[in-house]
């Protein structure tokens, strides 16, 4: 194949010969010694390898490096280094949002993208009103982070760290998509799937004003 150029953390890397089987994760870890992204399961199940491609979070173990020339790739190193922590990285430290730390680079890359998705009003599985998701709810954060597993089970503090940053964002409920396409009055997509606080087992201080109703147990 011809020369492949990958742009990782705003730096260009050229490859004249690269086995087509090489995943984006392996290129970073094995070829470039960018070892922030971790290999947990290598099958897209754990999220430890999460990186941003053009701002969107993906499992880097499940994509081929050769498919990504011209894309803007960001690993945890590009989000912030010890002396230049991002707000979210600082929040993870402040909230003790990890124990062993192995999943943390993936958690932070994932949560960095999550904040952007919430700003863009993307709904999630637990969103009651698809047109007006409230990404601040603890069940919303939990659902949106379900692709990142933490073996130490630091979930409550991970959620706290993400909540802290989300709450500091400029107003995110300001605009809705209704100007683009009004919901037909004859089509109803609003119902109540979110799991209850009890089901989540994580009390939240940030949602006392929310109206998301919970369903009876057993349905998810």
């Amino acid at each position: 194949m011809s020369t492949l150029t990958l742009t990782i953390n705003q730096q260009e890397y050229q490859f004249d010969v690269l086995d087509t089987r090489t995943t984006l994760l392996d290129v970073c870890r094995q070829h470039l010694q960018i070892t922030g992204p971790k290999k947990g399961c290598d099958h897209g199940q754990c999220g430890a390898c999460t990186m941003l491609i053009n701002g969107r979070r993906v499992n880097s173990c499940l994509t081929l490096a050769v498919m990504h020339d011209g894309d803007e790739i960001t690993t945890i190193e590009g989000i912030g280094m010890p002396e230049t922590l991002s707000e979210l990285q600082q929040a993870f430290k402040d909230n003790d949002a990890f124990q062993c730390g192995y999943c943390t680079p993936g958690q932070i890359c994932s949560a960095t993208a999550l904040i952007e998705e919430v700003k863009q009003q993307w709904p999630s599985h637990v969103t009651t009103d698809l047109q007006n998701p409230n990404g601040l709810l603890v069940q919303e954060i939990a659902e949106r982070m379900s692709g990142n597993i933490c073996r130490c089970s630091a979930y409550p503090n991970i959620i706290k760290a993400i909540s802290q940053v989300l709450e500091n964002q400029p107003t995110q409920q300001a605009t809705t998509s209704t100007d683009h396409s009004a919901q037909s009055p004859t089509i109803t997509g609003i119902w109540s799937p979110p799991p209850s606080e009890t089901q989540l087992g994580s009390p939240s201080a940030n949602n006392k004003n929310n109206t998301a109703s919970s369903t009876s147990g057993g349905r998810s």
Partner: protein
Amino acid sequence: MKRFEYSRANTPEQAATSASATDASFIAGGTNLLDLMKLEIETPIKLVDITRLELEQVETTSDGGLRIGTLVTNSDLAAHPDVIANYPVLSRAILAGATGQLRNKATTGGNFLQRTRCYYFYQTDSPCNKREPGSGCPAINGENRTLAILGTSEACIAQHPSDMAVAMRLLGATVETIKSDGSTRKIAIEDFYCLPKDTPHIETVLETGELITHVVLPAPIKGMHTYDKVRDRASYAFALVSCAAIIDADDKGSLTTVRLAFGGIGTEPWRNEDVEALLTDTDGNNDVITQAADLLLKEAKGSGQNDFKIPLTRRLLKQVIQRALAGEGA
């Protein structure tokens, strides 16, 4: 992973021609394909990268429907304003599947083609008629808790894993393709999947080198759109039973629209229009729901561990109808 030759297609025609060899495969999101390639369950000798094709648009059709490019990601489709407004069942179904990371990569066409998660299909030292035709099916008398109860055969009881495809079946989507000879065709979703019969390795009617280019949704259907998914954990798990529904009732409480499609129970996304007809123009009382469930599950065959899916499907059907009639959630 086995070695393969990689090429990138610039046009759909070129893609279809490049993949005309047996053992060639298209790759877009790759989240299922690469997983299977690592396990050497899929061993294409040639990968044709279609991610740079101009198939990322969602357009409105002349009859008020939507035409979705095959490369539209699951994330983009679920968050698309027209989908949220007019096909909320599709947003709900997509959002019920996988994770944020996977939905960012997974594409519309690829989601239709994802392979079963039957344990034996994934376990390469075990026989599997889908992976290795003629080798046998240990699932029928083995670990089959998650597997299908409808559309099964002596050769295979693997369930279809997609949530999105269940909503597409409900909505009556049409799949548009281009073949390696350059010709195009439109395949109604009800004709797209093949029941396993004695050839479970053949899962769709797509020919070698045939590329999905678009998926077309007919005009929106009014009513309450819901997607219920019963699974072993609250997020990131495949369905044990799921139900996509569009239900509408008049002010006398009579069901004017009933559309239902099920996931997790079928070897393909499952819709039975006779069940819908039986419920339509009734008040959805317990007796009629029982009759509807009887009809839906008439051919259902449990294999032991998955017997529970039969009563679970009955209960889910009842909940979906009664909740819609009560107007709950609206």
